[in-house]
């Protein structure tokens, strides 16, 4: 069996007195699309953010592509130990934020080529060509010279996805990619994500969109109060959950959001 792309084991994370992750482990194999679902406050965003160490887990290990992220205890807190390794590892993952987080002082094209040119050190001309292809892929070819402020939410998120893809990542991480969007704009973003899944990319998606998750994910993890209450193939989680809590959650959210 080939090596999993991402392995997170035994993650614990506390914010003050609040323990948000209580021993969560997760593995993502090549080509898998894993949906992470759960109620607000269940720890799903925190779990995702731990992988590129945007949050540093108090306990637990993160292994990306077979390489463990070095962490060290300093002044009572755990921090990344090797900044160069962290930068290198992060540049192999594409992270898509809930609030897009485009850089306001760069055009759409500028946003997409920023990391490839300045973090990965690739030649500018090559990055621009690839960026234009990616923008066309997400349907923003004509917005290449637009400023983020001029775009709708859906367009900004698609640009953010292009930005993540530009780094030729080995895995894509989506943190509630459509939660900040007006309902009419959700569809265009989901479409792009679906297409990426169809290409066979490795993806971890934290989302509330139950119907979409059921369609696109190969596997799903249901997080409840900081622990994995149930996990398994998406057919199981979404259609025939084995635990009562998961059943109740999925039923409530399927009703509310409906199927797509």
């Amino acid at each position, binding site marked *: 069996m080939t090596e999993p792309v991402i392995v997170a084991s035994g993650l614990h994370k506390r914010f003050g007195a609040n323990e948000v992750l209580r021993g969560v482990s997760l593995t993502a194999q090549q080509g898998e699309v894993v949906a992470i679902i759960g109620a607000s406050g269940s720890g799903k965003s925190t779990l995702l953010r731990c992988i590129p160490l945007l949050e540093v887990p108090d306990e637990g290990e993160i292994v990306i592509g077979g390489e463990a992220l070095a962490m060290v205890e300093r002044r009572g807190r755990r921090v990344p130990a090797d900044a160069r390794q962290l930068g290198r590892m992060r*540049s192999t993952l594409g*992270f898509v*934020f809930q609030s897009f*987080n485009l*850089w306001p*002082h760069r055009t759409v094209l500028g946003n997409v080529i*920023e990391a490839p040119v*300045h*973090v990965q050190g690739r030649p500018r001309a090559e990055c621009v060509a690839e960026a234009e292809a990616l923008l066309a892929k997400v349907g923003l070819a004509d917005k290449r010279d637009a400023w983020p*402020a001029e775009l709708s939410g859906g367009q900004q998120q698609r640009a953010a996805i292009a930005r993540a893809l530009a780094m030729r990542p080995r895995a894509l991480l989506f943190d509630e990619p459509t939660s900040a969007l007006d309902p009419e704009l959700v569809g265009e973003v989901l479409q792009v994500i679906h297409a990426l899944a169809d290409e066979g990319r490795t993806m971890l998606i934290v989302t509330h969109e139950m119907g979409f998750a059921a369609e696109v994910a190969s596997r799903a993890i249901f997080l409840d109060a900081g622990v994995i209450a149930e996990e398994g193939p998406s057919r199981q989680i979404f259609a025939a959950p084995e635990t009562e809590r998961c059943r109740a959650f999925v039923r409530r959210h399927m009703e509310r959001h409906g199927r797509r």
Partner: protein
Amino acid sequence: MDELDFLGNTLLQLLSGVPLTIELTVGSVAIGAVLALLLTLLRAGSRIGALFVSAFVFVFRGTPLLLQIFLIYYGLGQFAAIRASVFWPFLREPWCCAILSLALNTAAYESEILRGGFASVPAGAIEAGRACGMSRLLLLRRIILPLAIRQALPAYGNELIAMVKATSLASLITLMEVTGIAYAIISQTYRAIEVFLCAGIIYLALNFALTRGVAAMEAWLGPSVRRA
């Protein structure tokens, strides 16, 4: 005709003071900017540093500029040690004292402007940079500084105009910039209203040029956080 002659003459005489006004403005703003940057670094560096910077800003923003100029021009000369030092040839020159006190004063205001600029950088933009694998230095250079500067630019422009006005105080320590010449003419001719008119026009023209320059800079840099 005599009136127009007088006005014309006065304007020409006052214009000869413009180079010094500009020198004082540019010199104090440039040195002040460097000081402000140092202050910002000092503030971020340690608790004592932050305390020192807060005290510095408190004192220089809470007292009149005139008193600060007085302290440096007259006050420093009180000490034999300073008079004997290598700095004395500079510190007894009105020009140096003026630039020094103006620079210290503007540094206090500029460091606050910089602080506001840095605080306004959206946390999301920084996180996106980290998520891409940017190092701390790269993040500062490509994301934080550009956004902070764009945000601070309007306030900085206002500070520049305030500095142009502040240079007029240099006239009180014998420097013959525009206001100094204006005072000389008024005390000779007692025609304060006409002189005020001419000097006023010159200062307004300088401000206008500055405002346009800052606006052009803002346009050239592209959109900032504010409009996003």
